């Protein structure tokens, strides 16, 4: 009866849209809770990296190593990683829900999102915690100064 | 063949449906009936509008019931006020039922969820309204239950909500265009009687025809204010239901009585509820005088509508109107606290702001009488059964709401009594229809049931003439405003009759530009115009024969009430071809006695 092709990009809600556990509420709360924390984490991060001292010019391997020598920054950056990535991924999920009308497409997008998020979370965490500030055989001038002390 | 879908069974391009009860109209009356019928019988509601678009939603002020929540009150006083307000043309048995069942009607609505305004102790709050008094006219009484100034809106929403709850079967945007009557063998051998067997509807979305077979049919199609130009009624209130009944040769009662509401926005007709005056608003002329003090010293601005409308017209005629053309008076609420205005009259102040650019806090609002309510209509008894003459019931046919005439309003309806009417008699119609279908059988459909409607539509659709629908309608409406409004004379009325004669000829030559099937509103406006012409003609014809003044009907040439000759209802019958030029050739008038129980006619003074 209706002209589905014109300005009806999507099907009306039918029966059976409610299934499975419903995490929408928690997702929504999470967006807000993490948002508040992220403000602190991100601005701290940006300030230290881009504003303080030499700004972006100061960043190099040694800078990173210097930071992660301090457990404070390890925790900070881990929190930042997890909160921001999940926040962002959940936000992207919403957007996919909004615009991908085709069920298959939606599944593909969400799958890709999930995979990349999980992979990056694991990768990032591993990087932070298995980080070796003084890798063997690396040119000393690239390393943080405290590496020298430990060298024979 | 019974089914609940909107498609029905398709035979030869026509959809057939079968329901025990079919309700035509989804306004207050129709949906109140549906809530009664739906749970007990297979019910369908057919409406030319989505239910929540019905004009019940425009009602503002309130719904009367002697709850005595804030002031001493009882239903007997309410009955008296109704009878007196209707200038003694009210059937008093019906008025008694109305007033008695009012209390339950309000409680029913509250229980269904209607958010009435409340008193400090949590009961339903009540306000004053024109013509409602304590102790038979001693002083105004607070009898109108209300929800801000959107009582009708809340009633319509609440009823619709409850229809949703009961899963009522709606056919929205289906225009009923015909009532089917079948000749069946009568009780006595060799006789036949005509019984209603169904209705025929036009589906707006597709242009297809649907035949609904039903054991019981309830008409609840509302009013026909669009025969006038200045009116508080919706564009869609074209009296189709009343017109269908009329064309079937069934009578119409008291058609000459039409209520003109005193306070329509000047020039627009949009209503400013009487609730404003209930809350203390005052009518003033150009000199700032509270002129109602002169005409009705006791209840002043809360006199019944017919009286106020006439007083306003008199003020204007005598040169005390406001504005550059001295053609309106003022409704003044500037002495009320803005907070009170906001709490109790928010919508109507917004109307003044939006449409006239007037700020009611500080300026009085220009107002003018506006065609508002049809007291007359399809005659029914107190069981809401339609009558085919003064006493004979048409089995299985019911009517309720503004399209019906029970008659609880007589010659002038009191404010807040209509929302009451639709609930009390809507409920009765639904109940009685359910009772009826328990024992009744389906009446067979006539041969080729859709033929009549198809012919009418084909006739209109091929309209390749030169006359614009809108021109004919406008001329009719303007003439009705000029000649058949607050003041009428033989001369003015016969002018309309003659005009209608000419318009009918032109109507045969109309142009319908939209030839499509889907959503063809052009076609429907043409069909609706046909009903408007019919109803205007009956109204004027009935008005000419009533050579007295009573309630909403005021004849300058016969300015007094004449109980000796006219304390009777007018019954109009269509006897010939409605298209024949001369009204006298196809309309027959008769009378019906008024039921008087406790209140002998008295002079009506306020």
């Amino acid at each position, binding site marked *: 009866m*209706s*002209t589905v092709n*014109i*300005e*009806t990009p*999507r*099907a*009306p*809600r039918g029966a059976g*849209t409610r299934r499975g556990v*419903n995490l*929408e509420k928690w997702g929504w709360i999470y967006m807000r809770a993490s948002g508040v924390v992220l403000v602190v984490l991100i601005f701290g991060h940006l300030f230290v990296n881009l504003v303080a001292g030499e700004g972006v010019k100061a960043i190099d391997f040694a800078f990173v190593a210097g930071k992660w020598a301090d457990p404070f920054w390890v925790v900070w950056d881990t929190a930042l990683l997890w909160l921001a990535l999940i926040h962002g991924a959940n936000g992207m999920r919403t957007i996919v829900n*909004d*615009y991908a*009308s085709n069920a298959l497409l939606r599944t593909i997008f969400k799958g890709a999102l999930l995979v990349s998020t999980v992979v990056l979370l694991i990768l990032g965490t591993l990087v932070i915690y298995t980080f070796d500030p003084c890798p063997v055989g690396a040119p000393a001038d690239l390393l943080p100064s405290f590496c020298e002390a430990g060298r024979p | 063949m019974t089914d609940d879908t909107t498609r029905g069974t398709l035979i030869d391009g026509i959809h057939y449906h079968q329901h025990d009860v079919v309700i035509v109209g989804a306004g207050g009356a129709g949906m109140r009936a549906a809530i009664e019928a739906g749970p007990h019988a297979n019910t369908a509601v057919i409406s030319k*509008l*989505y239910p*929540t*678009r019905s004009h019940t*939603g*425009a009602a503002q002020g309130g719904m009367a019931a002697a709850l005595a929540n804030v002031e001493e009150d009882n239903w007997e006083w309410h009955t008296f006020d109704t009878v007196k307000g209707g200038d003694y043309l009210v059937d008093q048995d019906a008025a008694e039922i109305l007033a008695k069942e009012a209390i339950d009607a*309000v*409680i029913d609505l*509250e*229980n269904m*969820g209607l*958010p*009435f*305004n*409340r008193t*400090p102790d949590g*009961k*339903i709050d009540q306000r004053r309204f024109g013509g409602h008094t304590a102790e038979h006219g001693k002083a105004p009484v607070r009898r109108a239950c209300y929800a801000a100034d*959107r009582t009708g*809106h809340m009633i319509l929403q609440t009823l619709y*909500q*409850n229809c*949703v709850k009961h899963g009522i079967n709606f056919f929205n945007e289906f225009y009923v265009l015909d009532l089917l009557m079948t000749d069946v063998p009568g009780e006595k051998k060799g006789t036949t009687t005509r019984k209603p067997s169904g209705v025929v509807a036009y589906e707006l979305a597709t242009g297809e025809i649907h035949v609904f077979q039903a054991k019981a049919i309830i008409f609840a199609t509302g009013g026909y204010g669009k025969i006038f130009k200045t009116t508080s009624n919706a*564009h*869609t209130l074209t009296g189709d239901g009343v017109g269908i009944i009329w064309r079937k040769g069934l009578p119409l009662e008291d058609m000459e009585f039409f209520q003109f509401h005193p306070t329509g926005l000047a020039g627009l007709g*949009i209503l400013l509820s009487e609730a404003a005056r209930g809350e203390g608003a005052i009518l*003033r002329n150009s*000199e*700032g005088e*509270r002129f109602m003090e002169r005409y009705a010293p006791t209840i002043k601005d809360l006199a019944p509508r017919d009286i106020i409308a006439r007083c306003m017209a008199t003020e204007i005629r005598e040169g005390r109107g406001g504005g*550059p053309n001295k053609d309106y008076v003022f409704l*003044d609420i*500037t002495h009320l606290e803005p907070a009170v205005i906001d709490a109790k009259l928010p919508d109507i102040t917004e109307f003044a702001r*939006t449409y006239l650019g007037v700020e009611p806090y500080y*300026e009085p609002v*220009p107002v003018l009488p506006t065609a508002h309510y049809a007291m007359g209509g399809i005659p029914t008894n107190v069981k809401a059964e339609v009558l085919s003459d003064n006493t004979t019931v048409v089995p299985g046919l019911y009517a309720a709401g503004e399209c019906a005439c029970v008659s609880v309003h007589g010659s002038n309806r009191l404010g807040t009594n209509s929302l009451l009417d639709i609930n009390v008699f809507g409920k009765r119609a639904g109940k009685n229809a359910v009772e009826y279908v328990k024992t009744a059988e389906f009446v067979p459909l006539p041969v080729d049931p859709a033929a009549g409607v198809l012919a009418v539509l084909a006739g209109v659709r091929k309209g390749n003439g030169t006359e*614009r*629908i809108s021109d004919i309608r406008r001329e009719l409406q303007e003439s009705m405003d000029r000649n058949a409004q607050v003041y009428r004379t033989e001369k003015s009325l016969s002018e309309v009759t003659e005009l209608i004669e000419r318009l009918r000829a032109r109507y045969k030559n109309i142009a*319908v*530009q*939209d030839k*499509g099937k*889907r*959503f063809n509103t*052009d076609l429907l406006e043409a069909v609706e115009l046909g009903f408007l012409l019919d109803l205007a003609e009956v109204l004027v014809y009935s008005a000419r024969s009533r050579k007295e003044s009573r309630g909403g009907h005021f004849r300058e040439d016969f300015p007094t009430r004449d109980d000796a000759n006219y304390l009777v209802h007018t019954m109009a019958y269509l006897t010939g071809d409605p298209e024949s030029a001369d009204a006298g050739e196809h309309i027959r008038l008769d009378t019906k006695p008024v039921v008087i129980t406790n209140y002998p006619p008295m002079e009506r003074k306020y």
Partner: protein
Amino acid sequence: MSAPTLERESSAPEVIPTFTATLIIRRFDPEVDTEPRWEDFDVEVYPTDRVLDALHKIKWEQDGSLTFRRSCAHGVCGSDAMRINGRNRLACKTLIKDLDLSKPIYVEAIKGLPLEKDLIVNMDPFFKSFADVQPFLIAASKPDKERRQSPAERERFDDTTKCILCAACTSSCPVFWTDGQYFGPAAIVNAHRFIFDSRDEGAQVRLDILNDKEGVWRCRTTFNCTEACPRGIQVTQAISEVKQAIMRGKP
């Protein structure tokens, strides 16, 4: 009593001047067109005319096939929500003089619901969402008189009782445009009306219904709905209150 303000002789001059307004209307005839098309109309209007009056003038004097819904003509029935100059409004509540007259007036159907013809869309999905939130009083007890409710309790949900189901809000919501499964603001408004009604006992049911993938969490607080609502309902606020109620687990 004197009424000093009555001398407002200035309003409504004797001959009210008219002017020409141009309306550009998005037409669509399902029996002929495959795509909607824009069509211009010039109409003579009075400053006090509403867009609905202009549409009527076109239909009645120029092109009878122009199709739109209307009934009450004063903003209480909800028939004629449409997009006027890119904003959802009721045609009967929009005065032409209040629009920018240096430009033509663009009129089109509301978005997000299936277009049927010209300015008419199919409202069934909209009413379906409404029905899905159980918009009726749920209360087991059957008192013999009215249920008591204090004025304050009554005031709690006053705003959302004003809804006329015109769909201006839902059809202005960007989430609804892209995700027609979303309940939409109007349905939530009508759920709110009962969730916060002290007499109602079904709040939990409705909160559960709206605590859904397509429920309140879908709302991105864009406020389009609030801006569109011709009844001035604080729609976003109502949605927000429903979210809070779901989080609290009770109204």
